């Protein structure tokens, strides 16, 4: 009786075995990659009710972040500005603009503008803006170069691992306090020395315990 399977069939179990390993590895990597905030969250750029341009306001006009985000130095939340802040200028500048209609409507009706949250961390993680600014972590470290964005986009994964990477070694992100709101900031050559000095002077010890953020 002739052989049913050719001799090369002997190698099939091996292929299947390797194939399963590769498939499982691909699947695992797929979940790891496509499921991670790096893939799911970075680049998130929702449409806002008003096409507010940070590019125009923060870059071209050179407004400081803190003109609108007033809570950032004192509170846990930076705060999205109230309609009133927009109207400080826009009663004079472009008072008839079509794009600003929702703002004027909010001002007239007393109903808030519903902005879409871009940078979102889970409710069980308690992040505090003021603590980070106070030690010299720039806005840019987490939010990217906001001043270059016509529509705000998430540039960092904001995952727990990403947080912890910096908490373990913040030296790349520490700046002089005068530069925290600067965009496109370039670290000086002596950044490592500077960071070491800040860490020692301010006795920085960023928490890496769970209770640092979760309570």
């Amino acid at each position, binding site marked *: 009786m002739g052989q049913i399977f050719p001799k090369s069939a002997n190698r099939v179990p091996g292929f299947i075995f390797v194939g399963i390993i590769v498939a499982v590895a691909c699947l695992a990597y797929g979940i790891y990659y496509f499921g991670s905030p790096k893939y799911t969250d970075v680049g998130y750029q929702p449409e806002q009710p008003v096409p507010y341009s940070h590019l125009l306001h923060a870059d071209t006009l050179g407004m400081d972040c803190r003109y609108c985000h007033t*809570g950032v130095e004192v509170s846990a939340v930076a705060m999205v500005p109230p309609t009133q802040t927009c109207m400080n200028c826009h009663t004079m500048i472009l008072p008839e603009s079509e794009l600003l209609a929702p703002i004027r409507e909010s001002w007239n009706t007393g109903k808030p503008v519903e902005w879409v949250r871009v940078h979102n961390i889970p409710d069980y993680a308690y992040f505090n803006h003021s*603590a980070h600014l106070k030690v010299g972590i720039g806005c840019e470290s987490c939010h990217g170069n906001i001043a270059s964005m016509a529509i705000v986009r998430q540039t960092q994964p904001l995952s727990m691992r990403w947080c912890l990477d910096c908490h373990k070694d913040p030296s790349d992100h520490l700046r002089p306090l005068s530069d925290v709101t600067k965009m496109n900031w370039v670290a000086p050559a002596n950044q490592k020395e500077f960071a070491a000095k800040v860490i020692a002077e301010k006795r920085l010890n960023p928490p890496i315990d769970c*209770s640092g953020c979760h309570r």
Partner: protein
Amino acid sequence: MNMDKNMSELKGKSYWRSLNHLENNAEYRKFAESEFQEGASEVVDPVTRRKFLSIMGASMALAGLVSCRRPVEKIIPYVTKPEEITLGIAKHYASAMNLGVEVFPLLVENHEGRPTKIAGNKQHPTSNESALNPWAYASILNLYDPDRAVEVSYVDEKTTVEQFAGVWTKNYDAYVANQGEGLAVLSESFASPSLSKIKDEFAQTFPKARWVAYDPVSDENIYKGVEIAFGQKLRPIYHFDKANVILSFEADFLGTDSNMTQNAKGFAEARRVKTEKDSMNRLYLVESSLSQTSVMADHRLRMSSNEIGQFVKTFASEFGVINESIQYDGRRDWVKAVVKDLKKNKGHSLIVAGRQQPAEVHVLVAAMNLVLGNQKTVTYHAFDKAVVSDSDGFYALVSDMNQGKIETLFMLGGNLVYAAPTDLQFASALNKVKHPIYLGTHYNETASRSEWHVPTLHYLEAWGDAISHDGVLTVTQPMISPLFMGMNFLEMANLITTGEYLKSYELVRKTWDSILPMDIFESAWQKSLHNGYFSGTNKPARVSVKGNLNTFAKNIKPLKLGVDNLELSYKLSPQIHDGRYANNGWLQELPDPVTKITWGNAAIISSTMAKKLDVENQDMVKIEYDGIYMKVPVWIMPGQADYTISLTLGYGRSVSGRIGTDIGFNATLLRTTKSPYITAGGVKISKSYGQTAIACVQDYHGLDTEKLAADAIQTRLPALVREATLDEYRNEPNFTRDITEEYPEVSMWKEFLYDTGNQWGMSIDLNMCTSCNACTIACQSENNIPVIGKEQVLKGRDMSWIRIDRYFAGDIENPEVVMQPVACQHCELAPCEQVCPVAATTHTEDGLNTMTYNRCIGTRYCSNNCPYKVRRFNFHNYTKDTPDIVQMAMNPDVSIRFRGVMEKCTFCTQRIAGARNKARLEDRGIMDGDIITACQEACPTEAIVFGDINDPKSRVSELKKQNRDYDLLSELNLRPRTTYLSKLRNPNPELEQHA
């Protein structure tokens, strides 16, 4: 019962947790040894398996559609931001709560216009402390009660406040014309300048109408007694801090009596001991039912309430206040020794009697204090702008109602259809009133029988004012706009009086116009709002005894009690007051400080009585008095006088909300106008059929209930609650540590040193703990701890992070009581951490044992391995059905826990994080006192102190250096961060053999 045998076998001082424990029968052991009660692991959710699968199917489909992207979240900013609000930073405002004539100055935490947590106003000169009693703490939840009345109702129609005001304005002129004939106002007692002012105007406008104040439970007898003795209407205020020796005749001054927090604070000051050289006060207590105050008693006599009157006469006679011959009834030595002690401490002693004792007793007590020269320990103040409860006036009003003389009756607060004594038949009297108008928070028993029901605004929704006994004026500032339609007391009273609907702000301002100095009114007003008070004085009155006391003393006649002639006493519930907090879940679930019963009440009897009746705990009995009977389960308590029954008021509400309806049994049914507090004699009790489950938390989470230790309990208990007398302490200053042998401390692994930075720790002084429960409630409010209901509590799933363990010692009929608050001990070598398979519970560098809820997979290994039994498991998704409005009471700084997650005390990690951030922003380190945990803040006796143990100068370090400091379960070498200071008692050496 083999109780007696077990007692006799035990030598020396032995401790026991409950009567079940003392019996130590198989049932108790099975109960105590299981980590959770039977049924704790089964799923009782109404979601059946099929339903579960269909729900799962739906969520899978959804998952496919929405992929991994999380839902879009909106940011909704202000349109115009209030200048003073910074998002994310809580504001604190001064306000005040009134409860009868008592004033609680408050500091309210307000998150973006939403009050979430209240504490005492430390700056207020009357209270001077951040502590409050549980009622005040829990009152924040009343604001967010989903069952609050939300609309004005006229018979069955829903209408508005304006419409109601319109209707009254129409009738108003007719009443002005006939001088108020047929008009009456029935309010609760109050101490408010504005309301007093309106009341005076009311009397002028309607000379023939009347305004009666009545509280179901009040200090009326005390006031009456003082008035008889001194001939003036005065209110006694006790200064326990100045008293070295205190004799209490059933006064629960550390419990449900008026001014509890101030009493406790003063008492603690006179009792605090730092070294063996210090002295401490001494408390003699005579009472019928084990009270919260008994925890602090150095000598306690068990005596029925009506017999106490006679006993007071014995003392009065000894002090020469009356000249009646003395009958010692075998207590000669006791009386002689106490009298000698009191005389030795002339001017620094204090005699107090409970509000349930008749006025005659208070006459004698007032006179005795005067004889003892106690001008500093008790002061008498005139009722400045306060209106107190007047039972006789109320009874007269009801009789007029029955005769049809009252046409329009305004009821401002209270719930008298439920709470008035049964023989008044208030409900039927109300039917004879043409227009009963009720101002009340809930649609309740009274509202359902009124023509009009106008919802009352919560005190944090409207303006008000108050005046404390020493004349300090306090403002009640609203913290939030009214959530629902309604009026507050001032607005209603003003509407009645003037026919005009003015807002409470205008009314308060109008009153204060005449009080504050005119030239600087605005600045003084602003300052009063900021500080919460405006200084004023009400100096103590000079008093002297008027009249012949012998005649009053003759009215005190004791009865011989027996099995068929029992005494029944009614007490205010330490949880739900007179029923007004029945719909407050926090308070319903709060254990009674002494019996540890939650969600209901029971008839408390002594074990002798129980034997005679052949009843056990939870057996139903029938209590009969004057032809009326009620059925209620019994609960056997040590320390209860024989032939007496104690019942707590406030339970058995028939029309309350979703929480308070039909919880417990209504003791008011037996209460009569003749004997509103103590029904002495004529009460019968008989065994009925059946049982009612009582959710008593005492035997849950026991430290001494592991299988291994079951036989060794008696050697272990004295090491858990360490105590000694002051003399023993002086002779052996190190007794606390000598109780246990030193174990060699060998560790299985390399240990973390915890020697740098802040290291958090806590000290709890057992000598100070009065078991007032304020810490438990404050913790619940701060940490969003869910309410789970009676069913769940019965299964041993109670969620409170800080429990107060009760231990009895000595005589089974009249034991000493020790209370021990136990929360997570934050062990440096925590056993829970070692068994967690997912590292959900870990240690931080600053020594906290933390719980990461999102990692927890609910194996409950940690709870199993925790020797202190302080971990609490979310068996169900307890917060799933929390109504939106209740969610407003949640602290935004603390996560809400889901089903299947373990939780426990965090040392208020959110407050630590807050202090750390604040210190960082101010470029400094964390200082001692920056972090006050919620329980510490709530403790009126400062028994709980939290701080940095790495800082040798911190308060907590100083306390831990004391020679009374000890670890709980030190033999396990867990190095708990919470340590205890042992308890001391100060018995009279002359009486020790009788103690």
